[in-house]
């Protein structure tokens, strides 16, 4: 006897239940396994006439007998329940094999409760089955049993055509590779790469015929006469790739959809090349004569003999049809964001490579990869490459890896982004989602510039990891947001520097002093990078992608920055935060090439100051103050982050505003310190309460004086605001030292919603 101690324990538990149920359960037999590792079979008799029964349910006998199969590793593997009779076949959760499904999911099995839990579950099943309350929709119709004999694995990938009132006879398009055939489409006409397909309207029996003759008869009973089958077989045999066996796809409506309608269950019958060859020449021809006719007759006889005596070789079929298989990431925002999308990934390193793979697994249909670097031995520590990849381009290796998943087309670009894609008009590759995993300020800045003129059509996700892979930062930019990662990271920095809760992240990504402890894995000759394992970087990347996903799926005028730190990290403030970045108002530079971006914060401050002025003693006087922000000559963008109030020593009248200096130097110093040099003095603003935001000679004089009178201010921005606090409009002018303003063609932009655009051009 070869029962394991675990199996013996199961029997002991059954005996204990037997003793405690006073005849409710009897262990009537125990068959120990013949060999260690086999299942032990315990036969139990259960009293059932004390269970409430209704006409909807199973009608029990006074006692019902069950076979409990106890695996060798009970309770770490759960037992299973069988009945040997056929009375319950067709009932929900009872299979043709006699298997009674009492656990819908493996996770419902509680090993610690052993047989006590198992028998309680049996009792619950009996109780529900007796009143017909087992939900048939919980499980698919039981797939029929076929004896798998062929070695070919068939993967069904494409949904079946609709089968209505009569059998569908057509062809399944195949993709054939060694030992495996994928069904990748359906067609009504034959082709070399298609297998005959018969999709029935009626179900077959629970066990499919083992012999060809039985199968042909079953098909005939379901509306496909023998002659039609042979016609299909011969047509298919003639057209097939002769180096391969022949396959016939058979569908029966034996699977259940979510709405309880029946879906096709696919089985595939394989015919040997030799028999397929015979079938291909089995059809009589009008000009058959003499030896040809005799030969034909001989072939036909062999086909008939085959049909009468041969066994059916059934292939194992693995399902991947969307109508059958519910994606395991169903309802995940990641799948919602990436399913069917074209994804472009910049950078195939520790962040980009896993991100690309996750995008493919989440259903991205196309992936375009960029990375100019080759695989070096050191990166194997945390990037998904293998030793054989060393010396090869990362993109090629990653593309191969992603293609092997078999769900997306992958394009690999070995070129330097800055010298290739980012110079082209379609720098974004028409991505639905662009992932910037380069952590390169240059790439970020160039993309920001490119985006000014040819905005990305889709969403962008930029991710970077801190120096020790304990913190990470992402910019999430939905389609429609006016700006890219540089814009959002600026806003994130300003917020992090101003918010105590985010100071840990500010210290990480924008330290007051440049980090001195740069990590160079190969000192002297490698780029600095972060310290950290694949675990940390993948964890951080996964968190960022998961949080970004819902934002990537919808167009919005609000971008987001996500700060995250590993849960174990201790730093000042929070470990995870998401901040919203409202779109800035973009104003063209009426005097030059800059794009001026007036932040939402600055716009609100402007309105507040104008309201205060309007309620003052001289509302018709002009007012104004200092502009704080940053001018970027590379991308030609000036960010106005904040507007200051009029200095106390300012002088104003209905036609003039002379901006004072009292307190300005202190305010500028404070702004620079607080923002860690992100924002500073960039120019002045003032109002035109009595006319539009058009540059006056006084304005020109003042600004020329500014840029020529201050060594550290070669360019300065003037923002003129007209209208009221609630309905203001503005024009921006950048004055450059030694450059005359030749054309003054102001573009006046409304700053508040609902305001019509005005232009004095």
């Amino acid at each position, binding site marked *: 006897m070869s029962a394991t101690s675990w199996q013996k324990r199961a029997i002991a538990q059954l005996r204990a239940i037997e*003793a405690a149920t006073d*005849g*409710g359960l009897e262990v009537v037999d125990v068959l120990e396994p013949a060999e260690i590792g086999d299942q032990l079979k315990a036969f139990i008799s259960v009293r059932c006439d004390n269970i409430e029964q209704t006409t909807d349910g199973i009608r029990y*006998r*006074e*006692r019902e007998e069950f076979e409990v199969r106890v695996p060798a590793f009970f309770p770490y593997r759960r037992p299973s329940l069988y009945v040997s009779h056929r009375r319950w076949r067709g009932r929900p959760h009872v299979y043709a094999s006699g298997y009674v499904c009492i656990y819908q999911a493996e996770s419902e099995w509680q090993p610690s409760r052993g*047989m*006590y839990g198992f028998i*309680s579950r049996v009792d619950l099943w009996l109780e529900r089955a007796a009143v017909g309350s087992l939900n048939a929709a919980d499980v698919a119709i039981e797939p029929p049993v076929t004896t798998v004999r062929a070695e070919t694995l068939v993967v069904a990938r494409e949904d079946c055509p609709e089968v209505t009132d009569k059998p569908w006879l057509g062809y399944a398009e195949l993709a054939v590779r060694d030992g495996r055939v994928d069904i990748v489409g359906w067609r009504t006409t034959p082709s070399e790469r298609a297998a005959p397909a018969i999709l029935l309207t009626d179900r077959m029996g629970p066990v499919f015929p083992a012999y060809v003759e039985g199968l042909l008869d079953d098909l005939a009973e379901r509306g496909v006469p023998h002659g039609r089958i042979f016609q299909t077989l011969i047509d298919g045999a003639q057209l097939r790739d002769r180096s391969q066996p022949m396959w016939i796809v058979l569908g029966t409506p034996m699977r259940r959809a979510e709405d309880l309608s029946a879906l096709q269950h696919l089985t595939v019958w394989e015919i040997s090349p030799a028999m397929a060859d015979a079938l291909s020449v089995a059809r009589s021809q009008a000009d058959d004569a003499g030896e040809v006719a005799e030969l034909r007759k001989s072939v036909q006889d062999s086909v008939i003999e085959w049909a009468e005596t041969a066994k059916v070789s059934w292939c194992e079929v693995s399902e991947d049809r969307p109508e059958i298989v519910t994606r395991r990431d169903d309802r995940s925002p990641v799948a919602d964001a990436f399913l069917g999308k074209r994804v472009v990934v910049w950078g195939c390193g520790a962040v980009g490579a896993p991100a690309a793979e996750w995008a493919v697994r989440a259903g991205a249909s196309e992936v375009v990869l960029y990375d100019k670097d080759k695989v070096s031995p050191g990166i194997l520590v945390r990037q998904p490459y293998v030793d054989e990849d060393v010396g090869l381009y990362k993109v090629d290796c990653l593309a191969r890896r992603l293609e092997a998943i078999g769900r997306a087309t992958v394009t690999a670009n070995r070129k330097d982004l800055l010298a290739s894609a980012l110079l082209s008009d379609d720098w974004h590759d028409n991505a639905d989602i662009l992932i910037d995993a380069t952590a390169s300020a240059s790439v970020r800045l160039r993309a920001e510039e490119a985006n000014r003129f040819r905005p990305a059509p889709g969403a962008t996700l930029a991710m970077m990891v801190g120096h020790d892979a304990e913190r990470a930062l992402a910019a999430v930019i939905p389609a429609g947001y006016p700006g890219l990662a540089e814009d959002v990271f600026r806003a994130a920095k300003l917020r992090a520097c101003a918010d105590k809760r985010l100071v840990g992240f500010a210290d990480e990504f924008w330290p007051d002093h440049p980090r001195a402890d740069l990590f160079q894995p190969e000192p002297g000759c490698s780029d600095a990078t972060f310290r950290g394992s694949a675990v940390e970087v993948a964890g951080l990347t996964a968190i960022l992608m998961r949080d970004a996903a819902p934002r990537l799926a919808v167009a919005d005028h609000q971008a987001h920055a996500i700060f995250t730190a590993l849960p174990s990290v201790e730093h000042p403030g929070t470990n995870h935060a998401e901040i919203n970045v409202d779109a800035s108002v973009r104003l063209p530079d009426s005097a030059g090439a800059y794009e001026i971006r007036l932040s939402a914060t600055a716009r609100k401050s402007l309105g507040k100051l104008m309201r205060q002025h309007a309620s003052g003693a001289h509302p018709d006087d002009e007012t104004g103050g200092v502009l704080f922000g940053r001018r970027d000559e590379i991308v030609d963008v000036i960010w106005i982050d904040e507007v200051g109030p009029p200095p106390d020593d300012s002088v104003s009248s209905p036609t003039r505003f002379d901006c004072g200096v009292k307190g300005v130097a202190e305010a500028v110093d404070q702004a620079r310190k607080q923002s860690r040099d992100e924002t500073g003095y960039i120019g002045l603003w003032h109002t035109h309460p009595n006319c539009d935001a058009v540059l006056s000679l006084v304005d020109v004089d003042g600004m020329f004086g500014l840029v020529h009178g201050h060594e550290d201010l070669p360019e300065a921005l003037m923002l003129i605001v007209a209208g009221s606090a609630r309905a203001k409009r503005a024009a921006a002018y950048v004055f450059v030292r030694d450059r005359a303003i030749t054309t003054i063609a102001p573009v006046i932009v409304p700053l508040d919603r609902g305001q019509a655009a005005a232009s004095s051009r």
Partner: protein
Amino acid sequence: MALSLKVPSVGLIFWPVGTGDSTTVIVDKKRWVQIDLHHLVAAEDDDDDRVPVVDRLLELAPKLTGKPYIAAFAATHLDEDHIKGFANLLKKATIGELWFSPRVLHSNEDNKDLCADAKVFVKEAQRRINRIADGKTAGSGHRILIIGEDDLLSESPYSELPAECFTAPGEFFTTLDGEDLSETFQVFVHSPKKGDGDDDRNDLSLGMQIMISDGDTRGTFLTLGDLAYPDVKAIFKRGKYGELLWSVFQAPHHCSRKVMYWQDTDDDEEKRKKDVLDLIEDHADEDGAWIVASCDSIPSSDKPGDNPPHKAAATAYKAIVDSGNFLVTGDNAPDPRVFEFGDDGLELRAPAAKPQPKSPQGKRLSEGAAAAGGFSSSGHGSLVGFG
């Protein structure tokens, strides 16, 4: 105990006679076949639940020229629990023909442990054999049917008997006390196997499927005496489906576990034989099937060496028929279990009062599992004091 019984026109009566067989097949109003007899003297006491079956037969059986008439008496074998009371029945009733196996005919030395009624049966059988062998007319009251094969039958006087006195397993007959009833009655013979005087009497029990029919509907009764697993299984494996189909199956050997628990020569211990239970179940009539155990109430447990009935066997049979269709004659005493043949074949006549189950009620599994597994479903039901 007094008993009022409405005898069916056609049907079966299983008499509650303790642990023993007494089954009456009512072929029609004029013809009864009595299979075995277990008349206990103690049952004649009014306080005894069991039925004094010979008294009932004499009272209720058809009358022929004023005398109770049993068209045929079948002795499955001559153990006391199958033949007790025969002498009285033979004396007071006309028994048209006797059915028995050749085992009955072995010398008295082989049959030295026979009870008095068995010896009377043997004597009566020999009388009829000698009479027929002498060439006298074998009319009602003198007929015999020897069922089965035995080398003994090649000897005189058996060798001088006409062919109609013999039948064997695999054959069927439709005559009853000299009358052809092929429209309504058929007996298919399944046992005994060929044996001799050394065989255990149980193992050479008569086994028969008795079919009664009205042309459209049929009812089948399968009785296998006291056969045990090897012979029961052999019968089911050998026979054709229609020959083994049963509406009513009499649990062999008074609900003995030996039908489904057996130690084969290859086995080192007794094992449960699921195969025979599946075979029995496979031949149950889908239109209605009952199993009758002719015995006292089923015990609550079995101990090694216990005589039938056995709980283990009852447990198995309860899983073969619909709930309520496993019947124990003792549970319904003093009322017999009566099956009436009608438009739907054999149907159990509802008992006068619902019998109280004498077997344990049994707890629900979840309660038992909770208790056994250390989980109380209700906690302690009353105050628990501590000192």
